[in-house]
Structure formats: C-alpha cells, structure tokens
C-alpha cells in the first residue's frame, strides 16, 4: 500500500468517525427531550386558552376543548401527567424555543417559515373557508352559477366569494353581520370551525386551507414521532372524528 493510499484511508476513517459521532449526538439530542419528559413525569403543553372550541377555560378554570382532549391523549400514550401552560398567542413560539413548554397545541396554523426552529405534527384540523349547503343540487363549485351565497361581510369567506364571483357567472353575494347568520341561508361560505359546528349543512368543498398542527422544537424529533403516533391512532380508530363532533358540534 502506497503512502498516498494510507493517507486516503486514514482520512476516510477520520471522516467516518466524525460522521458517526455527529449522528450519535443528533440521536441523543432527539431522544433527550422525550427522556426528560418521562423523567419529569409530565408533558408541558403550551396553549392560549382563549379560542373555543379548541381551548378555553371552563367555570372551574380547567382547560377544555379539542386541543385539550388531544393533549390528554398524547400524555396518556406517553404514560405521563399533563400540564397546561396558558400563554398569550404571541408568546407561544418563544415559550417553546426557550423550553418553557415541550409542545404547542393551540389551534396553531402551520407556518412553513418557522421550519428552521420548529417541527409540526401531521395536520389534525382544517380551519380554512368552506362552501356549505343544505340543497341537494349543489354538488360542485360550478353549481353556484346563478345562485346566491351568504357570507359574513368583510371576512375571509367574503373574500373567497368575491373571488368566485370573478369566474362563476351570475353568482350573487348575500352579506351578513356574522358567520352564524350566514348559515341561516341555503348556501354559505364559512370557516371550517363554523362549518363543522352546523349539522344541517353539508360541506361541498374547502375553498382554502388553514391547517392546524402541534409544534415541537426541531431538535425534539422523538417527541414528534410520539405525537404523530397518537394522532394516527385517533384518526384510524375514529376517535378524532368523535372528538371533533363533540367539541365543535357543541
């Protein structure tokens, strides 16, 4: 073996050792967040309890809502206690990044610009704008030709209706003071939460997406995997749908 080959091999092994060391460090970092939660015996969930039906305080000061139910399921699957940390919406990400909380679950829209620091779970709710109706003849957006759609004046639903008006002939808009009033009419555009809360209207189509997900620190991939496992289990078993009906349909 020539001296040059010996050097090449030596360099290769040094690089391999550095790479393996780095992988081991990353793995330890990823596991350490989860290990810390288990050692502590409690999962700290950050939320802003002012957003029913996702999270709000009941008459006893307890956090209730869809997010609270999901957090409880995640903590149960991890075998730890659940601790809610109530924080103003603006401070949620900071609280996560300084490790004041382990995760956020707070009607939180997925923000791709935060992916350097934050990792999101699989989506669990779409709060985007929805076309709903109680009429059987409205099956597609194109069926709105010549129809009147009710919206909350000035809202994002109104924005979607005005957009549709540019492509669908003779579509009329019926502006209402709020989303609930819009649901009194046969065809309406409302946000996903309002749509799911109304059992008499059928969802025709989501016109825009506003996905909610849980968020963890980007280093905490082991916890993220556990959260996703719980969400997937709840989706498959139908528990997610039941909870949504219970909390949002209330």
């Amino acid at each position, binding site marked *: 073996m020539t001296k040059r080959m010996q050097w090449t091999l030596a360099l290769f092994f040094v690089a391999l050792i550095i790479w393996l060391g780095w992988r081991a460090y990353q793995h330890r970092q990823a596991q350490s967040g989860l290990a810390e939660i288990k050692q502590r015996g409690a999962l700290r969930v950050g939320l802003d309890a002012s957003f029913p039906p996702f999270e709000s305080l009941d008459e006893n000061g307890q956090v209730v809502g869809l997010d609270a139910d999901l957090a409880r399921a995640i903590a149960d699957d991890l075998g730890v206690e659940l601790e809610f940390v109530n924080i103003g*919406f603006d401070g949620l990400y900071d609280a996560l990044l300084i490790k004041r909380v382990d995760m956020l679950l707070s009607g939180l829209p997925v923000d791709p610009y935060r992916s350097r620091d934050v990792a999101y779970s699989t989506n669990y709710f779409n709060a985007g704008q929805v076309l709903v109706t109680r009429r059987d003849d409205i099956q597609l957006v194109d069926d709105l030709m010549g129809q009147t759609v009710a919206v909350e004046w000035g809202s994002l639903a109104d*924005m979607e209706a005005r957009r549709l008006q540019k492509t669908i002939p003779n579509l009329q808009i019926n502006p209402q003071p709020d989303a609930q009033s819009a649901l009194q009419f046969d065809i309406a555009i409302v946000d996903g939460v309002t749509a799911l809360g109304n059992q008499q209207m059928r969802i025709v189509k989501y016109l825009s997406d506003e996905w909610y997900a849980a968020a963890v620190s980007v280093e905490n991939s082991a916890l993220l995997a556990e959260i996703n496992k719980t969400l997937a289990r709840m989706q498959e078993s139908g528990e997610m749908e039941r909870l949504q009906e219970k909390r949002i349909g209330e």
Partner: protein
Amino acid sequence: MRKIVHLSLIAIIFALTGLLLTRSASLPPFDLGPQQSVTTVNPEMGVHTRLTDEVEAWKIKYTLQMVREMGAPWVVEYFPWAYREKFPGIFDWSHSDLVVQNANRQGLTIIARLGYAPEWARPANSTPSFLAAEDYERFGDYVAAFVERYRGQVDYIIVWNEPNLALEWGFQPVDPAAYTQLLSVAYRRAKEANPQVQVLGGALAPTLAPPGDEFALNDLDYLQGMLDAGAGDAMDGLAVHAYGWVYPPDDPPAPDVVNFRRTELVHQLLQENGYGDMPIHITEGGWNDHPRWTRAVKPGQRIEYTIQAYQMAQEWPWLESISLWAFRYPWPAKTYLDYFTFVTPDFIPKPIYEEVQRYAHGEIDK
C-alpha cells in the same frame, strides 16, 4: 515577472470586491411602466407598505400599483439603515431605488422611515434599535446620504420608530431627551443635504405605561419630555400611531384610553407647547379583524371604522396624511398580524381593500 502577476491578481480581487460592494448601479433595468396618478376623493389617504423584505421587483411594483388603484396617494415605507450601509461608508441603494422609483411612477408620496442600526455601528450583543449617543452622527451620515440620493423623490422622513418602547430603544430605559438628541442630529444632517425635506419626529407607540415602567412610557408624557428637551425645533412635523383597538373611530379621546382620537390629544399637547401649527401625519394605525385577538373587531366593523377614520382625518385641519397599517406582508405572519392587512401575500384583495377602493372612488358615502 512573478511579482507583477501577484500584484495584478491582487488588483483584480480588489476591483471585483469593489464591484460587488457597489453593485447598486449594475442591477438589470426594470420596466417601471408609464407615469400614473392617483384617483381619489380623499387626498390624505395612505397605507404603510411592507416592502423591506420583498425581494422580487415585480412584487414591489405590483404592490404599489394596487395601492394607487385603491385610491391612496400616500405610502409609509421602512428603509433600514442596516440594509443600506452594510459596511461603513459603502451604500447599496439597489432595493430602495426600486421602491422609490416605483412609488414615484405610481404617483405616490413616500414617507420614509429611517432606523435599524447595522452591527458595525453598535456594540456586540445589542439589538438594531440600540444606538449609543456617540454614534448618532453615524446615523446622521445615513440620513444625509438617503436624503441627498432621493432629493425630489422622497420629501418626508421619520426618524426612528416608537422610541417610547424599550424594545425600540435597544432595551434601555426609554429617554425622551436622548431621542431628541438623535432627532436633532438627523434634522441637521437632513436639512444640510436637502433643505426642502420634511423631518418627522415621534412615531410614538400609543401606550398608557406610567413613568418608571420597565417596558414603555405613555406617549403623551414622552412627547412632553421631547418638547421640554427642544424637539419642537428639530422636526417639521410629528408622526403619530393611531390604533383604534376595539373602539370605533369616533370614540371620545381621554388620557387614559388608547383609541383613534388619541391623536387629538397629541395635537392639543403640541398646541399647549406653542406648536399648534405643526402638521401631524398618522404613519401607522387602524383596526384588526382577527377572530380571537382580544384587540380585534369584526371584519365588517373594521371596514366601517377604516372608512370613517379616513373621513374623520379630513376634518382635522392639522393632519396632513393618514397611513394605516399595513397594506400587505411579503409572507403570512400566521398570527393576528395577518388580519391588519388589506391584501394577502398572494395579492388577493380582501373585502376591506375593495370597500376602501369604492369609497376612494366616490362610489359610497358612509
């Protein structure tokens, strides 16, 4: 011979570095389109744009075109010092040229916010809102260079932003006298560069924070402090932030309430100090229609309040312009902040844009 080659290489490297640092003149030409003018029933109407982080030239042009089409002749825009002078004395005007030229071509009047200190002008581990008193002249250099470059294109500048908040004052205790010193330096340097430019001071955050508060000082107390320190002679006009929060625009003013008509108290304070003729420009303000933010109103209310505010502003003889926050963000904030805008990041006009446009074009009389 070898020495000559080495020297040549060094010279080439220097030349290339110089070219890179002064690349402002080498940007590809951009079609600004024909000269436009704003059609509006209200010549005081404006919006605060957010083009600082907008990279693509066509988006800058289209944003300003939409402002013009809405019927707002005024825009407030931020021109951060740190972005223009990354190295001492070496200016990159490429981005600000795009904004200024496009705004001018759309027939808009620009109020330029100047601030945000570069790293080289402040101590390590300080924030861009920090500037030591001994470095005020460095900021003055930037002000002079900006005003000189945009003579005849930018007639109004605002010195710093919300200095009555510790966050905007480098996390130091807020200090109206120190801000007045900064304002005086900027005023002198701006006037030396272009005597016609109008220097606006203040741009204070409306807040009720009492003296001694860790984070802020009541804007009225702060303004009095500025005037006591001589700020009245170091500005041609006052920039005011007028947020309505949950109150309608005609909600009566009171010292212990933050609402739109707090602007009247600001004018009154100027009057009491002998500056009643000083023009006021509202350079931020408006309402938010987020579904859950505690300071938000319903979307329909936001439309009504906004149009009423534009109308009310015309009744204040001491008010020269009213620019509301914010026309459009380059990307979604994914927080309540998104519900301040008139247009989405994808340029989809929100209903408020269309209603304000109808008002500005005389189609509604609310």
